[in-house]
């Protein structure tokens, strides 16, 4: 831990304590945990407020809240999306511990219900650019190949773009996929995609909440420029055992949870696996390609334990892997490409007092990718990965109802292996150089306060001090101006090679115009010390994580955002308009002419060139929150450009994911009994079979979902002319990303049919169709030249490859 940072942290800590204490007289604190009554799960983000004062707070990530006000008699209201509001009288004459269990507002927790949320939450909250996603809503949307996907859902929000067809990677407001901080129970997940990006690594059954912050990032988060996707796993049902699962066309999943000690401790284990390989195996076994297959699996597990009323322990872990293997028996050729993440976090919640909550976490995070080929006696293995050891201490301090203070410190020890390879043929071992890992310490201290300046103006202000130290052991290859290696500088273990640090101010404000609308503004300055170097236009597991070093500077970003939020028609509709402008410095790209073999016997970061970028845009959002038909429309108009001295002759060019228009329409329709009756009545009149069908229809519970997306096509660099060299036709490429593919659009629908429910058992069938009008959206474009020797002509044609035509799928879900 760096001295500077810890000194800063101590001073802050003392200042806060003193200020809090100075105002403590005459006031009492009501604090506690808000839980779900059925499962005992903590409810993060629940609203807890004093009706008479209209002042309150929201529960933190662990369901804890604390309100300090002058003594008196009040009504305490607790409300949370999907639950019945609770209102209780309290007599505040001393500090009160108030733990509340909330009941779900609907009969089952599966249905989408939008009552119970503090209806003007979006007007009230200072945080702009923050979106909470309700898991049940995610589950009601049409799923890609029947798989409910958290990442696919966030791509339906304005300002968040997908990387392309079937790709889970996402871009937020013009930032690259490495600019998003993806956390699973506080552990960083480096690679969020299975199968080259077609599915994300998150199993929706094990997830409790999803929160995306795309602007106004508060000071407790750092290390990435563009966004934070904070995913919290379920803790595990504390009251009874529960088994949920689903069997689908592509994969199946199973979740088991239950109490270890009723109301004190519980666990949850969740697993998922595909079986494309098992399905295809009988066919492949007989061909020359026996041994070829692909599968992925993931496993999430968590245990929690209440040591006492003020101490809780959580241990969670995630392990996921994709394995692709290819074999061609005739040639004696085999390839095996495994990659995946492993994370685990141990957390300890402790209540220091009614006003101060602290969480200490020890986190481990690992991502690795390996590519191995054997051909007869020749073996080659390429490997790259990153491993983090992270310690965090985060305090939530509630000195009074007008202040919500967060402060803490964070230290990560990174070990990057940008690339390592080994090769041998029989007994001859090729010289691929030593493995050069990169080690670094990334640390930060922050303080953040959300406070009401006036009745109408609430401010969320924070400061983060971050630091990055690149340390040995490390070998730096020095090069001459032609690019040949001239020597090596060796650094010993722990030796300091390069330090970077920065102060990151964060500010966001909310000004209430009236009870239905508000204006918000935000400014954030972020430092990012690690980068993802990507070679191709599509994200692959071969993308390499590298840290800042003597060759690579940290990414710096500044974002300005302004928004207008308004609720319409008695809070039935929620609307907003946000505009933003971002500047990014020290972006990196591979230099022209780089091929992966260059990393062997060389440092990965010797091949980067740096530049700047900016992006700006406007996001429009309208959400219908209540009724049987719910959903939203999101539209973004934006532009993002890059400028690198060594690329494109120094001229600005569009980023590869620059997308001018991005539209998403999402709808969920919960068929009401009376409407189902209309359908069945009309069918009755036809004939007996139709009548029976109608009856069957009426007695089941149907939910329909649909999505429509439209986006400007991706930009590409295509050749503009050709020439002959050694008799071959060669391409001359035009300016970087000069070409636009045709727009991408697609509609999906899904139908969920609930089976008969008993007290113990529920099931449902989900039918979904992806790309219902089978649009051939472009995946990539290539050129092919055919030569007619006899006619003496040649012709070049351009071809567009599309991936997914209409794809239906069925999934059967069960729960008991």
């Amino acid at each position, binding site marked *: 831990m760096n001295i500077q940072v810890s000194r800063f942290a101590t001073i802050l800590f003392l200042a806060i304590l003193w200020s809090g204490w100075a105002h403590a007289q005459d006031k009492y604190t009501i604090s506690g945990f808000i839980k779900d009554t059925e499962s005992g799960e903590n409810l993060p983000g629940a609203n807890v407020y004093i009706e008479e004062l209209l002042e309150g707070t929201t529960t933190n990530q662990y369901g804890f809240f604390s309100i300090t006000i002058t003594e008196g008699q009040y009504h305490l209201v607790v409300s949370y999306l999907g639950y019945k509001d609770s209102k209780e009288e309290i007599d505040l004459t001393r500090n009160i511990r108030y733990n509340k269990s909330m009941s779900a507002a609907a009969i089952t927790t599966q249905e989408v219900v939008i009552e119970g949320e503090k209806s003007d939450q979006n007007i009230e909250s200072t945080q702009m650019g923050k979106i909470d996603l309700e898991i049940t809503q995610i589950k009601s949307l049409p799923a890609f190949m029947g798989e409910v996907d958290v990442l696919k859902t966030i791509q339906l929000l304005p300002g968040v773009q997908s990387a392309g067809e079937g790709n889970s990677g996402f871009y937020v407001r013009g930032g690259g996929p490495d600019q998003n901080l993806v956390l699973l129970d506080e552990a960083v997940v480096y690679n969020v995609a299975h199968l080259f990006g077609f599915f994300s690594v998150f199993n929706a059954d094990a997830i409790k909440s999803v929160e995306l912050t795309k602007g106004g990032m508060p000071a407790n988060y750092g290390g990435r420029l563009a966004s934070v996707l904070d995913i919290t796993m379920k803790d595990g049902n504390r009251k009874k055992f529960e088994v949920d699962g689903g069997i689908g066309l592509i994969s199946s999943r199973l979740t088991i949870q239950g109490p270890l000690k009723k109301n004190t401790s519980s666990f949850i284990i969740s697993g998922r696996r595909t079986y494309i390989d098992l399905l295809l195996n009988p066919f492949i076994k007989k061909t020359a390609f026996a041994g070829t297959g692909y599968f992925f699996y993931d496993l999430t597990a968590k245990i929690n334990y209440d040591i006492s009323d003020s101490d809780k322990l959580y241990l969670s872990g995630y392990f996921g892997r994709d394995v692709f293997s290819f074999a*061609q028996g005739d*040639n004696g050729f085999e390839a095996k490409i495994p990659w995946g993440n492993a994370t685990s976090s141990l957390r300890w919640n402790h209540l220091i007092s009614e006003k101060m909550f602290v969480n200490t976490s020890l986190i481990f995070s690992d991502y690795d990718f390996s*590519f191995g*080929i054997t*051909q*007869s006696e*020749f073996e*080659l293995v390429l490997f790259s990965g990153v491993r983090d050891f992270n310690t965090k201490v985060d305090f939530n301090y509630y000195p009074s109802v007008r202040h919500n203070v967060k402060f803490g410190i964070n230290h990560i020890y990174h070990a990057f292996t940008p690339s390592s390879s080994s*090769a041998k043929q029989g007994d001859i071992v*090729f*010289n*691929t150089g030593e493995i050069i890992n990169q080690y670094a310490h990334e640390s930060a201290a922050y303080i953040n306060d959300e406070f009401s300046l006036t009745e109408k103006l609430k401010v969320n202000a924070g400061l983060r001090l971050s630091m990055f130290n690149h340390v040995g052991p490390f070998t730096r290859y020095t090069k001459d101006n*032609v690019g*040949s290696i001239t020597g090596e500088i060796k650094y010993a273990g722990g030796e300091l090679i390069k330090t970077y640090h920065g102060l990151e101010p964060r500010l966001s404000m909310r000004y209430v115009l009236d009870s239905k609308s508000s204006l918000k503004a935000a400014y954030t300055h972020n430092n990012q010390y690690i980068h993802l170097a990507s070679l*191709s*236009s*599509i994200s692959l597991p071969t993308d390499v994580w590298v840290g800042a070093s003597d060759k690579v500077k940290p990414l710096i970003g500044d974002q300005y955002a302004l928004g207008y939020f308004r609720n319409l028609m008695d809070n039935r509709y929620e609307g907003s308009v946000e505009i933003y402008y971002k500047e990014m410095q020290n972006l990196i790209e591979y230099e*022209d*002419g*780089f*091929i*992966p*073999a260059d990393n*062997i*016997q060389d440092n990965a970061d010797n091949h980067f060139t740096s530049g700047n970028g900016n992006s700006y845009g406007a996001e429009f959002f309208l959400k219908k929150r209540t009724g049987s038909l719910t959903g939203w429309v999101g539209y973004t108009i934006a532009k993002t450009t890059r400028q690198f001295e060594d690329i494109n002759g120094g001229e600005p060019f569009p980023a590869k994911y620059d997308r001018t228009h991005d539209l998403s329409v999402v709808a969920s329709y919960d068929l009401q009994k009376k409407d189902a009756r209309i359908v069945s009545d009309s069918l009755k009149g036809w004939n007996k079979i139709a009548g029976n069908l109608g009856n069957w229809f009426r007695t089941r519970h149907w939910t329909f979902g649909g999505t429509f997306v439209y986006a400007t096509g991706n930009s590409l660099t*295509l050749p*503009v*002319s*050709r*020439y*002959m*060299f*050694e*008799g*071959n*036709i*060669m*391409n*001359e*490429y*035009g300016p970087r990303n*000069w070409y636009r593919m045709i727009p991408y659009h697609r509609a999906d629908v899904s139908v969920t049919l609930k089976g008969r429910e008993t007290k113990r058992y529920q099931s449902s069938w989900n039918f979904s169709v992806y790309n219902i009008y089978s649009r051939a959206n472009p995946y*990539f*474009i*290539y*050129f092919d030249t055919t030569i007619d*020797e006899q006619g*003496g*002509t*040649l*012709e*070049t*044609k*351009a*071809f*567009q*490859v*599309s*991936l*997914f035509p209409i794809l239906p799928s069925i999934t059967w879900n069960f729960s008991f």
Partner: protein
Amino acid sequence: MELQFLIKDMSTTKPINIINFLGALFMAAIVLSCEKEITVELPDSDPKLVIEGRIEADGVNDIPPMVTLTKTTGYFGATSISELANLQVHNAQVSVAVDNITYPLEELCIADIDPGMLPLVAEFLGVPEKELSAYNFCVYTVPVADILSGSYLSGEAGKTYDLTVVSEGTTYTSRTKIPPLNKLNSVWYEEAQADTFGYAWANMTDPDTVGNGYRWFAKRISHNAAGEQKDATFLAPAGSAFEDKFINGITFDFAYDRGHPPGKHEEADPLELPHFFKKSDTIVIKFCTIDINVYRFLRIYEIDANSAGSPFSSPTTIPTNIEGGGLGLWAGYGATYDTIFGAK
């Protein structure tokens, strides 16, 4: 059969293979993918000059430098091969300087070239000699008068050569070197598939210095059923250029498969198997040393020429060693020859 390359050469073929391999597999694996032809609107761009120049030394013969000049052209629509041949640029001033002396080159077209020079020109252009007259190719080379007098500029190992081209008011320059020759220790044929097909193998020693580049060519001089020589010119297989990054200072065996003439996608002769040599073939190996900048150009050029624009590769500009806004390569080659004699 690019898979075979993995054995031989890590510095260039591995990335070709990974990219191609992933690209091919990916496309095959996604059974549901479909493709269709589209039209692409290309922007207008001014044609650029493309320089293809070579100066060679083999320690025995005197080989003059040769340069062809062509232009870039538009992309789509059918073109006749003769139209491409007409992309040649005439009336440029071309010269080569070595040891502080500048030697101007003269433009000679096939019709005017001395028959004795035709084999050399055919080799340089990569066009079988008998097809040369079909297109009126022109090369810039040493003046006819010098050839007739027997005293003309020719390549020498260890020397540095500067090329200057002035065309349509623009000057282009380039520099290359012919590295010292490195003869293979031995060459032989080894069977790979069934009884009759295999690859050409060689053993070499790389000197202990860093930054040595090599290029491999092979030509079958045995005859086919029709009585014609199987390969009219030397052919470079994909991955023919490599450097000594991983093999510095060591002696080792390596193999290459059979290259194919540019543009020919199918094997015309049913008795041959693409990419393979036959046990009965007599193969002449031309093994050249090249300058590191020439290697850098060739490796990217070979990747580009071999990848059909899969999504896994990024479109790169080939690192030309021509200054002044031109494309192409001015290369020095230090060539040595060895022969694998066919078995009965």
